[in-house]
């Protein structure tokens, strides 16, 4: 599935293959102005130029990473506490070992995602502007 539809036209919205960053609705695109700048719009008229869309998509991406890091960290912590608790609360040695292994696994995944977020470098959008090619 494409992101941008073929044959983007001036002043006629074409449906894209990407979702609106603000409401997850269907996003449409047209071009406008001398440079055929892209303008994106959803059903409720959240509106973006290209730089704004990229910025919003980067923000959603980071939000999603942190949501996943949180899910992994919570699970890891819960399992680790169950390992401690299990000793005095009738858990079998096998169950405690399973908790321990899974806590370690998801803990490592959380750290790996933190490293990924830390290394992400969103593009500089200074030149991703309508008219940037014209004014060089």
């Amino acid at each position, binding site marked *: 599935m494409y992101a941008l539809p073929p044959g983007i036209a001036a002043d006629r919205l074409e449906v894209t293959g990407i979702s609106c960053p603000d409401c997850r609705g269907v996003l449409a695109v047209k071009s406008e102005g001398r440079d055929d700048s892209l303008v994106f719009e959803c059903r409720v008229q959240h509106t973006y130029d290209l*730089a704004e869309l990229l910025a919003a998509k*980067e923000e959603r991406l980071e939000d999603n990473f942190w949501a996943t890091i949180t899910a992994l960290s919570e699970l890891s912590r819960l399992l680790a506490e169950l390992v401690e608790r299990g000793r005095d609360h009738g858990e079998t040695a096998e169950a405690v070992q399973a908790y321990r292994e899974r806590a370690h696994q998801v803990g490592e995944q959380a750290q790996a995602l933190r490293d990924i977020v*830390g290394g992400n*470098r*969103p593009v*500089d959008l200074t030149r991703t502007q309508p008219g940037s090619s014209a004014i060089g």
Partner: protein
Amino acid sequence: MINDDRVARDVIVIGASAGGVEPLMTLLARLPRDFPAAIGIVLHRSPFYETQLPWVLGRHSPLTVVEPADGVALERGVVYVAPRDQHMLFEAAVVRLDRGPKQHRTRPAIDPLFVSAAAAHGPRVVGVLLSGFGGDGVSGFLSIRAVGGITIVQAPDDAQFPTMPLRALKEDHVSAALSVEEIAAALSVLAPGGALEVGAPRTPA
């Protein structure tokens, strides 16, 4: 009286938000070329746009103003401006950049610089909060005070957007509330270890 124990306050960390560019330019323009302190600046900014911020802030300043790379040496007489989309930390000998979680919904944020500087440099740190909105910088101020550092805010009637200085005045025992020109003069006294004749600011209602 501030700094009557004559400690060289040679690590200066400055936070600013809305309305912060002009006071930062004025401040840097008024410091001398051989200024004997390292200066860190966090200005709230968009994470997506590369601007010529060091050039803008340093236009009228005799000091070297840079956006540091991760791990560069922390040196006196240099002004380090936090780059877009990274927290900037002052460690004992180097500057660290960290794309960690946003703080106060922003990256770079002021608190990571203030807190790290306080942890690494203790009473040598002077924290300065200029014009802006929001609560970023208050935790950092408390960290600086906790290790015997000095905290200065731009006087609310001197700031374009006084919310940030007012928040700090309310939450912390700020050492002084001064105009930008007075802050420049104060830093020039404090950096080499001079004492400053200033009354403590009134706490806003």
